[in-house]
């Protein structure tokens, strides 16, 4: 969450810097539509981000400004000086709040109501806001221009080439061991640097996807809808810049899908669908593109409504409407200012989303494709170029030539030495039978006419293409390598068999084969069987991931990854046996710690920080091992085995699955509703010091004054003090022990009687 917030701050700050020019220009000419649009987009983006970052003040300001600007865009309001000033006041305020968040300072919010009121049509002009100076905090990250990273990257590759050259030359002479050692060290450093530099530009698309579950959950909850999110392909790597540029469009699309696409549970039931809507977000690489697909099973786009709206706003003439194809009608959603929604919500529905989405994506050379099925859902596929994406490849050799194939495209590699593979000719088409599966065979050497390639197939790569699988015969499989792939020249791409070119460590260029392209060039024909298979695949993706670790008692256990917030080492002295149980101090907070065996005399213990979204607990372990996917089969635990849900097999070994539910069930706060107990002391402070902790441990909330809007369930008073409150039962405490009949008072140290009496008064007696 911190990362997201940092990013939001950096982004808003940058946009504000860029926007300041626009604002001045708009001030000079309020009728300038394009300036208005950019300011509108800014507040819209801020509003969108605030929604899931939970920044209500910013959300309120931006929503108010957006309303006014939308009215101006629709021609309902005239941008006069008062309005411009009011909007600028809000924009300035957004900037101040962002700075304050960054600095961790608090900012007085008294003037915000005035700012919002000034946006109203009949508001009196406001005085320009005084500038509150908030110190900019020192940032822990540096934002770099991607050009700089590019230069760094190309400098790095040059360095690798120079190192290779040097190594080659030194190899020819008899080498001094000291020189050899120095060269070795240089090589290591260069390799490490190269990894680092490469990483500066690359990010797993996970960085983009990780925020989605929370966002979907919150958005759905806000709208009273149930949505199940499935994420797939989070490990596809993408250029960092592209990830940043994809963030807003993705957020817009997903919010739209939940707000407009997916119906309420009631509507879904009537339509014969499952009550919980389905949202599938997946990323995959296809040829030289990355495809990000957002599919929902909601109502789809009502194209008739869109067309009617376009007519209403005179964006299209009747003749033009008649000429539109269905897909063109769907594409109207990209038109600025068009939306099928009539009511504006905080989530979406101003028709601003999709035009911004398309503009952002086209800016990075991508495109957006819609596939709309009225009543069944909408699938949006974003294509972005692979340029500069790193992909994991298998390097194969044919004749003297090397090629890379994306690892994603290769199901398996089989050699022909084994019995399980045979090659036959069916007519004049070669067919490979691999473990009973018949696949068309493509001889890469012959297809590309490579001199010196083996006439007989030696090694087969089973390639999965969009249309079907086939076997690709190569001479040998050489290596696997992570490569930065770039598009090749048009003359090279025109062959249809390559997806791009790359420069591996060898310093010699290499071509990346396009699995689907080869099938097409080889003339393979596949029957369409994809539809049912895809469905099955989606179902499988719900398998849970879990962390495998060695527990303190030496057992190997797994725990579902979803409940683990993070794994971190803590100093052993932060763990203490206090108040009857082990607790871990982290900063100023204390969280309960679960262990299965004594920690021993280690200086540092790795702990798993677990959270269910509300309660946090820690779980001390001996050592984390790796992340594994849980198998479908779990042998249930025998009764009385503690916080263990069952046993699974990982790598042939029995592993206990920790029962997260049991861990949290042990930690839950005693009673969700705490009766309020009003303490009416005699001024000595005895009640606050002695009684309050004892009562709070028993689940009461002790106050010395009843907060406004609440009523006390019971009142406690020392004898001789305290006035009875109407409707509140009163218990009196006396100072002397021994029975005293008649007045109902309780001796102040008779804890059992006191708790029992309170329980009776508050109706909590069991």
């Amino acid at each position, binding site marked *: 969450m911190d990362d997201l917030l940092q990013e939001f701050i950096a982004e808003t700050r940058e946009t504000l810097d860029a926007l300041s020019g626009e604002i001045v220009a708009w001030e000079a000419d309020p009728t300038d539509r394009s300036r208005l649009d950019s300011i509108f987009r800014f507040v819209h983006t801020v509003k969108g981000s605030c929604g899931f970052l939970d920044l209500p003040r910013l959300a309120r300001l931006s929503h108010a400004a957006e309303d006014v600007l939308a009215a101006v865009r629709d021609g309902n309001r005239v941008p006069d000086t008062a309005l411009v000033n009011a909007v600028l006041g809000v924009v300035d305020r957004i900037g101040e709040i962002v700075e304050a968040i960054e600095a961790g300072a608090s900012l007085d919010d008294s003037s915000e109501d005035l700012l919002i009121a000034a946006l109203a049509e009949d508001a009196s002009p406001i005085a320009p806001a005084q500038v509150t100076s908030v110190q900019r905090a020192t940032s822990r990250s540096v934002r770099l221009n991607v050009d700089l990273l590019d230069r760094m990257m190309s400098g790095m590759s040059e360095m690798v080439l120079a190192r290779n050259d040097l190594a080659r030359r030194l190899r020819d002479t008899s080498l001094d061991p000291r020189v050899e050692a120095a060269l070795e060290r240089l090589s290591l450093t260069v390799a490490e640097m190269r990894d680092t530099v490469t990483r500066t530009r690359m990010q797993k698309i996970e960085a983009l996807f990780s925020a989605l579950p929370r966002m979907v959950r919150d958005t759905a909850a806000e709208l009273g809808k149930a949505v199940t999110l499935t994420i797939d392909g989070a490990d596809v790597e993408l250029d960092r810049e592209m990830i940043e540029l994809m963030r807003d469009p993705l957020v817009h699309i997903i919010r739209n899908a939940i707000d407009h696409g997916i119906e309420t549970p009631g509507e879904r039931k009537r339509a014969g669908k499952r009550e919980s809507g389905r949202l599938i977000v997946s990323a995959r690489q296809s040829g030289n593109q990355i495809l990000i697909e957002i599919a929902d099973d909601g109502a789809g786009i009502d194209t008739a409504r869109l067309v009617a709206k376009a007519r209403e706003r005179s964006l299209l003439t009747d003749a033009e409407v008649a000429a539109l194809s269905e897909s063109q009608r769907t594409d109207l959603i990209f038109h600025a200012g068009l939306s099928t929604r009539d009511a504006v919500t905080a989530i979406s529905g101003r028709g601003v989303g999709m035009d911004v989405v398309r503009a952002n994506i086209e800016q990075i050379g991508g495109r957006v494709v819609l596939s709309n099925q009225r009543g069944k859902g909408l699938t949006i596929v974003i294509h972005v170029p692979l340029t500069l994406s790193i992909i994991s490849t298998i390097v194969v050799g044919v004749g003297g030539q090397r090629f890379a194939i994306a690892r994603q495209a290769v199901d398996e590699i089989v050699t022909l030495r084994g019995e399980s593979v045979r090659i036959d000719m069916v007519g004049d088409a070669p067919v490979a039978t691999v473990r009973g599966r018949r696949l068309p065979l493509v001889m890469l050497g012959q297809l590309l006419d490579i001199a010196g390639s083996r006439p007989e197939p030696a090694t087969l790569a089973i390639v999965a293409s969009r249309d079907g699988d086939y076997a690709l015969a190569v001479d040998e499989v050489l290596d696997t390598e992570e490569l930065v792939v770039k598009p090749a020249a048009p*003359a*090279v791409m025109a*062959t249809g068999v390559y997806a791009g*070119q790359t420069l591996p460590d060898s310093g010699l*260029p290499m*071509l990346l084969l396009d699995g689907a392209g080869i099938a097409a060039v080889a003339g393979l024909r596949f029957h369409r069987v994809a539809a049912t298979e895809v469905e099955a695949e989606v179902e499988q993706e719900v398998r849970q991931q879990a962390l495998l670790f060695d527990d303190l008692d030496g057992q190997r256990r797994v725990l579902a990854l979803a409940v683990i917030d993070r794994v971190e080492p803590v100093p052993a002295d932060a763990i203490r046996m206090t108040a009857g149980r082990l607790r871990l101090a982290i900063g100023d907070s204390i969280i309960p710690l679960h262990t299965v065996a004594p920690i021993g005399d280690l200086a540092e213990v790795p702990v798993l920080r677990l959270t269910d979204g509300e309660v946090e607990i820690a779980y001390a372990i001996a050592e984390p091992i790796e992340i594994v996917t849980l198998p479908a089969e779990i042998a249930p635990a025998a009764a009385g085995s503690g916080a263990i849900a069952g046993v699974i097999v990982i790598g042939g070994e029995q592993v206990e699955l920790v029962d997260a539910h049991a861990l949290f069930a042990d930690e839950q706060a005693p009673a969700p509703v705490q009766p309020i107990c009003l303490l009416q002391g005699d001024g000595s402070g005895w009640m606050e010091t002695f009684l309050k902790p004892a009562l709070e441990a028993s689940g009461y909330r002790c106050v010395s004054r009843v907060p406004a809007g609440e009523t006390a369930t019971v009142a406690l008073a020392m004898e001789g003090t305290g006035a009875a409150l109407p409707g509140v039962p009163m218990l009196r405490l006396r100072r002397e022990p021994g029975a005293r009949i008649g007045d109902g008072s309780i001796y102040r140290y008779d804890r059992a009687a006191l708790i029992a009496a309170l329980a009776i008064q508050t109706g909590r007696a069991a």
Partner: protein
Amino acid sequence: MSELFLIAHIAGRGVAIETQQIDSVVDITEVVAVPGAEASVRGLVALRSRVVTVIDTGRALGIESTPDSARRAVITRIDGHHYAILVDSLEDVASFERLPLSAGLALDRGWGAAGTGLVERDGEPMLVIDLARLIPVAALAA
């Protein structure tokens, strides 16, 4: 108005290339073939950590293939891609007046497509060639 041209020899003829089209002049090393591509694509070569497509200039002009021994090349950038145009040899850069192609001059094969004008060096006419027209596909689009 005179412009700067690089004088080069391609397929035994002297030609002039606008210096504006030239990124750099290099000696290329090992060329990796691109099987399946058309004959005028000699292959790929690594140059300053970039992959450059090598053009067999002889084939691109529709005459005989430039010999494998030719190593000298002119680097040009077209539509975001870098190409190495193989040449027999290079002379120097000088300023010339660009003249229109002489009327009635029947240029053969690829020369006709690539030639855009003439320059005159010490009375010897030389064909001005446009590198972009030597690039396959790009040439088709032009």
